[in-house]
């Protein structure tokens, strides 16, 4: 019996349990003097179905994940496995070929040594397969018996079922949280390994970045792992240039949309602006690399700049700024809209013009929210990868000239992780350290921004 058949059988049992329990509850109801039972028949049905299917399926899942290694263990314990090479690629090949033939995925083996192992594999997997099926069905039966014994007219099946639903919801929300914890754990682990090779002080204060994946495996030169130029490039592209574009444009469009635009204009313009946020960043990336960067180079050339770079920080920063506009404008829009109308009326009633009211009352009152929006936008900009991978360069350079090529943290993470170095080399591990630093910075920005927003909301409620 294959896994999918087993699954269908268990679900079928669950359905049968549902129908039987439900009709039984209906019977209770007819027998009851006032036609009332503690829970509706449907809940009795669900109660039984959950007891039948959930423990059985959970077991089947666990069994499926461990039975492979159980099979392998029993095969290796078999006398025929004694001739296997102790480790290495050949051993793996023999084992996997034997397994493939045993399960019917392949017809013959190319390595004759595998032939002897086919039979042990087949025996072991049959054995553990049958155990799995029997235990699963037993569990389903036990669940059914347990549930049916408890069905009574005054049994509160609804409360139990609702508890089960609650549990499911809890697990669903935990999945996301646990994933985040896992990501952090893996980052921290690899970062510690990297800092075992290169000291954090060298990493955080050094100004020369030139990891060499070929030679750095054992004893990396700490002087090649100074990440300051990367931090500077990230800051310069993502914070300075992008924000010079995004803050004024985002603020102005928010003020226009919120205060001046006629409702008809607003219903068209606001979604149009939000489309900007929906453009895939890779599209922004080639727009920056193929359109903006050459244009900037041409303009720089006509202005008499000698030898301008075709991968300027300016191109990446400008396009990133455009990408960020919707974040700034929608947060600013929300914050301005959250300023009570009374505040605006108070200013207008003093004879202030709309312009004065916006400048002197609305924007100052909305400032905490606007600042929080800008912080979120910055955290988004410095974590942005695709645009810089396509439009920024690989050259790490400490320069304040926006026409020069610069690299960023995210660019180097991609470059070092997808490079040719082995996963143990300092160049690869450096990517984790960079990712960790980036994560800490964006996390801090997000936490601060959310706190600011929360306090601001409280002030007006």
């Amino acid at each position: 019996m294959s896994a999918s058949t087993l699954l269908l059988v268990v679900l079928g049992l669950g359905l049968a349990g549902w129908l039987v329990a439900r009709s039984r509850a209906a019977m209770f109801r007819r027998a009851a003097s006032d036609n009332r039972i503690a829970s509706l028949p449907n809940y009795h049905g669900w109660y039984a179905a959950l007891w039948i299917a959930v423990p059985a399926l959970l077991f089947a899942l666990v069994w499926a994940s461990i039975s492979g290694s159980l099979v392998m263990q029993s095969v290796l314990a078999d006398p025929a496995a004694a001739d296997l090479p102790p480790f290495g690629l050949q051993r793996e090949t023999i084992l996997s070929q034997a397994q493939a033939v045993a399960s019917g995925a392949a017809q013959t083996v190319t390595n004759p040594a595998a032939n002897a192992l086919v039979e042990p594999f087949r025996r072991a997997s049959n054995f553990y397969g049958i155990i799995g099926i029997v235990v699963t069905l037993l569990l389903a039966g036990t669940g059914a018996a347990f549930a049916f014994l408890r069905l009574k007219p005054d049994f509160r099946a609804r409360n139990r079922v609702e508890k089960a639903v609650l549990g499911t919801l809890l697990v669903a929300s935990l999945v996301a949280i646990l994933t985040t914890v896992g990501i952090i754990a893996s980052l921290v682990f690899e970062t510690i390994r990297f800092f075992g090779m290169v000291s954090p002080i060298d990493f955080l204060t050094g100004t020369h970045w030139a990891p060499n994946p070929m030679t750095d495996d054992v004893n990396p030169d700490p002087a090649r792992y100074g990440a300051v130029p990367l931090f500077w490039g990230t800051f310069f592209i993502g914070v300075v240039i992008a924000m010079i574009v995004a803050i004024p444009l985002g603020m102005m469009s928010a003020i226009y949309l919120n205060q001046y635009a006629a409702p008809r204009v607003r219903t068209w313009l606001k979604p149009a602006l939000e489309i900007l946020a929906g453009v895939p960043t890779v599209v922004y990336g080639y727009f920056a690399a193929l359109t903006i960067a050459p244009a900037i180079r041409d303009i720089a050339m006509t202005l008499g700049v000698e030898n301008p770079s075709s991968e300027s920080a300016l191109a990446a920063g400008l396009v990133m700024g455009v990408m960020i506009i919707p974040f700034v404008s929608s947060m600013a829009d929300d914050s301005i809209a959250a300023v009570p109308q009374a505040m605006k009326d108070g200013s207008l009633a003093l004879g202030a013009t709309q312009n004065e009211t916006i400048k002197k009352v609305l924007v100052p009152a909305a400032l905490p929210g606007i600042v929080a929006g800008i912080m979120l936008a910055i955290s988004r900009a410095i974590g942005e990868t695709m645009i810089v991978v396509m439009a920024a360069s690989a050259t790490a350079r400490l320069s304040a000239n926006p026409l020069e090529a610069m690299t960023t943290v995210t660019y180097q993470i991609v470059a070092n992780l997808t490079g040719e170095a082995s996963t143990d080399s300092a160049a690869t591990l450096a990517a984790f350290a960079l990712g960790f630093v980036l994560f800490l910075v964006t996390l801090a920005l997000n936490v601060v921004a959310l706190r600011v927003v929360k306090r601001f909301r409280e002030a007006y409620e």
Partner: protein
Amino acid sequence: MSDSETQAADAELGLSNPSGKSLEHENVEVGEPKMRARDVDVFYGDKKAIDSVSIDIHTEFVTAFIGPSGCGKSTFLRALNRMNDTIPSAKVTGCIELDGEDIYASGMDVVQLRARVGMVFQKPNPFPKSIYENIAYGPKIHGLVESKTDLDEIVEKSLRRAGLWEEVKDRLEDSGTALSGGQQQRLCIARAIAVEPEVILMDEPCSALDPIATAKIEELIDELRGRYGIVIVTHSMQQAARVSQRTAFFHLGNMVEYGHTSDIFTNPREKRTQDYITGRYG
């Protein structure tokens, strides 16, 4: 000015009501009114919120608008300094004059109008700025001051007139929102006074305040009478009786009756007014 004096003073003046329907008591006219409304309708979209209201506002008296919720008294009040302009669907027809000038005429600068006809709102709405900046806001935007000394003077004078100076003189740099509700409302009145308006409209200024703070505001209104024309919308009939000399009763968008406050409360002409003030409805 006591009520009996004003009554004697207006006794000889007749009543002019273009609609011909006698809404006003005969003895309420005195001299040239500060504001004059004639046949004013206010629409929200297609809905008529105010139906042909005519009334005169005098600087000498406090005028109270009373009536049940939704009767249009606040709507009419907001028409008097064109605050309804901020509501896109609102439309005002008829004629409202300030010193004989039509405030809805195309030549009328709404900014200037609101500087002359100030407003105090139901809920205190100080700006999230310092107490000083709250008062200084209006004079600054209207360019009323040349120097910091002038501004200091205006701030102090306005706060004194609003009876708030003694309470806040040592903490002018504190945020206006840190004051108590009653103090905030007096701050808002001081803010309105600071631009030297001619009329102050008050939209239920005490409805969010406790009785002690309410008493202070009422005292203040009494002190400001004569210097500024004051129109107050109130839900509380006791308050109308205490602070006003003229009362208009609104019901379902109509002005039912207008006259001396004492007459409206002791001797109403209309059954609807009587029902309302005796608590039959509303």
